[in-house]
């Protein structure tokens, strides 16, 4: 994504000559681009934090978070070409989706499952993002299935000679699924323009890396497929960008797939239904905070003179405004109507697909069930 949005450029234009030959120059990143990357990292965090507040306030029933993963997500996504390349993301991919063109409103309407939620029109659980407009493949719940879809997209790109690259992302636990082996093997045989990102946060819900991944490295497995396997510090945005940029170059040159394992930390529980203190020690949780990409990237940009106090103030204000706007907007959006619930099973409406005897009337709601769920969530959010 060499091109920064014009609006972002305009916003940070005053700082464009702030860091003459410094940070990012070796990667071909301008000061404006660094600021935009920072904005996205900080925006993803702010949207995510708002989700937890709304969850605790009883406004949204479920949160699955990307906190701790944002640096890797923005750095990696930045290497792709927005509107051209493909990403098959996963449930923690908030920063990925924001970087690839989805808006905070798009993310927030998914939390509220509104009719206008562009990911699914309120049909899927929160976290199952997707946008055809932005080449983000619809997320499902069974983990790792999306790898094969990205491989198929890469196959189509190769056969149709479109020059596109397809990238997919999942956690290290999910990377053990059989679909991953089947897909990497196929992608490597055909030298497809495909990139596999593993965001390794050390846990699959409660099960630690040592019990998930023999040898504790997913990147090492790349060797078996004859493709490069790269391990990168996921809290280092620019290192992630560099690794992804190389992978994109390989893919576009017809040299085949790359596996990138980004070591990240999961700063929250697995989801709002999980209490991670049950299986992670206080010391571990405290020490892992040093891997938080947000303060780290901020400090890096401040030290380099890229993120000036003025610029930071402007970015912070814009993020606050946009999170506020997204929340207000999503709060006010209507629920989907049951009369739409039988739409899009197929491209056409089939007369033989029988509606239920109770018809397609008004929503009945489920106040009892909702209250129960809210209680369970309160418990896990303690």
């Amino acid at each position, binding site marked *: 994504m060499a091109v920064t949005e014009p609006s972002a450029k305009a916003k940070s234009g005053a700082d464009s000559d702030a860091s003459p030959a410094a940070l990012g120059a070796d990667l071909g990143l301008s000061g404006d681009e660094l600021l935009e990357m920072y904005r996205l990292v900080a925006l993803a965090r702010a949207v995510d934090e708002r989700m937890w507040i709304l969850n605790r306030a009883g406004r949204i029933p479920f949160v699955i978070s990307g906190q701790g993963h944002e640096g890797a997500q923005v750095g990696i996504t930045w290497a792709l070409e927005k509107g051209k390349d493909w990403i098959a993301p996963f449930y923690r991919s908030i920063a990925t989706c924001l970087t690839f063109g989805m808006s905070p409103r798009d993310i927030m309407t998914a939390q509220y499952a509104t009719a206008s939620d562009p990911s699914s029109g309120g049909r899927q659980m929160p976290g199952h993002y997707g946008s055809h407009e932005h080449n983000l493949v619809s997320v499902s719940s069974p983990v790792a299935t999306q790898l094969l879809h990205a491989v*198929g997209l890469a196959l189509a790109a190769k*056969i149709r000679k479109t020059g596109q690259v397809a990238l997919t992302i999942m956690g290290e636990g999910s990377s053990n699924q059989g*679909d991953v082996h089947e897909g990497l093997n196929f992608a490597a045989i055909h030298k497809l323009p495909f990139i596999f990102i593993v965001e390794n946060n050390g846990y699959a819900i409660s099960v630690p890396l040592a019990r998930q991944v023999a040898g504790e490295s997913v990147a090492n497995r790349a060797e078996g497929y004859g493709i490069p396997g790269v391990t990168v510090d996921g809290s280092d945005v620019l290192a992630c960008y560099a690794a992804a940029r190389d992978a994109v170059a390989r893919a576009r040159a017809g040299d085949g797939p790359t596996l990138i394992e980004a070591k990240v930390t999961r700063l929250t529980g697995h989801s709002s239904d999980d209490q991670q203190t049950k299986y992670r020690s206080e010391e571990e949780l405290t020490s892992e905070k040093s891997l938080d990409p947000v303060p780290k990237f901020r400090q890096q940009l401040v030290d380099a003179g890229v993120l000036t106090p003025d610029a930071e103030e402007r970015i912070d204000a814009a993020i606050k405004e946009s999170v506020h706007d997204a929340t207000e907007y999503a709060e006010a959006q209507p629920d989907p109507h049951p009369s739409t619930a039988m739409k899009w099973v197929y491209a056409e409406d089939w007369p033989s697909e029988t509606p239920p005897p109770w018809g397609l009337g008004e929503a009945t709601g489920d106040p009892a069930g909702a209250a129960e769920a809210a209680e369970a969530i309160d418990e896990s959010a303690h």
Partner: protein
Amino acid sequence: MALKTFIEAIRDGLREEMTRDENVIILGEDVGKKGGVFLVTDGLWDEFGDDRVIDTPLTESQIIGTSIGAAIGGLRPVAEIQFADFIHPAFNQLVSEAARLRYRSNNGYSAPMVVRAPYGGGVHGALYHSQSVEAFYTHVPGLKVVIPSTPSDAKGLLRSCIRDDDPVLFFEHKKMYRSVRGNVPDGEYTVPLGKAQVTHPGTQVTVIAYGLMAHYALEAADRVADDGISVEVVDLRTLRPLDKETVLDSVRKTGKCLVVYEDNRFGGYGAEVAAIVAEEAFDYLDGPVTRIAGPDVPGVPYNHVLEDWFMVNPEKIADGIRKLAAY
């Protein structure tokens, strides 16, 4: 018109669709140089090359999952699963992904693709080369399921499947590949999905069948004609979406309904047809809706005596018709 075997008609359909639309590709195990283990794709690799006819590794989930992604990316994949028995590793990709993609994205995405697989018994294929798997997939909204019984239908339906904007499973009875011949129209005709056909008009008993059983039902109708029983045979052709009108019209006329399927009886596809007839044509029925179907054992046994015992055949169907007619 030209006389073709079932397998030739399918191959012609594939070739003509690949010629018409360069986005149509074939992928599966041994489909390339060898032309598939049954030779359905024989010659297509020579004609269309490596990019359009792809020999995949031995990985069914990959075949289907990659087809989904390729379909999103603008191709029209026709995946071959070597035997329907081996489609199970791809169940998740079919049911959780292909079937749900359009619905879960509120029409943002779809997976226009065809999955072809030879199914069925009576060929000494034993437990793992004889299965009927249609019921697993007809159960799933979002998937379409087609089982043709004639060369003409096979070609015309396959064309419609490839042009359809949703995922379609196209099951071919392997016993029919070379044993069934029929006239195939010239030119670019299609047979629409979701339309059954009355293949033998009659007045006293409706027999509903598909695939190989549609042939056996016709033979059974001839046998019982000697007993003075007039049978109407409905060949479903598309199992989902089901052409309820043709089925119900026939049953409302005859008042008696026998559903025939080769798959295990319990929870088979025909059970759904029987339920629909019972619910929606009850007032017209002059006897119980009955079924002739495979016995409930976990697979078709190999030994020919046991296999013959398993398989539904024209005489077993004729028996069922006689009993129902006498009711």
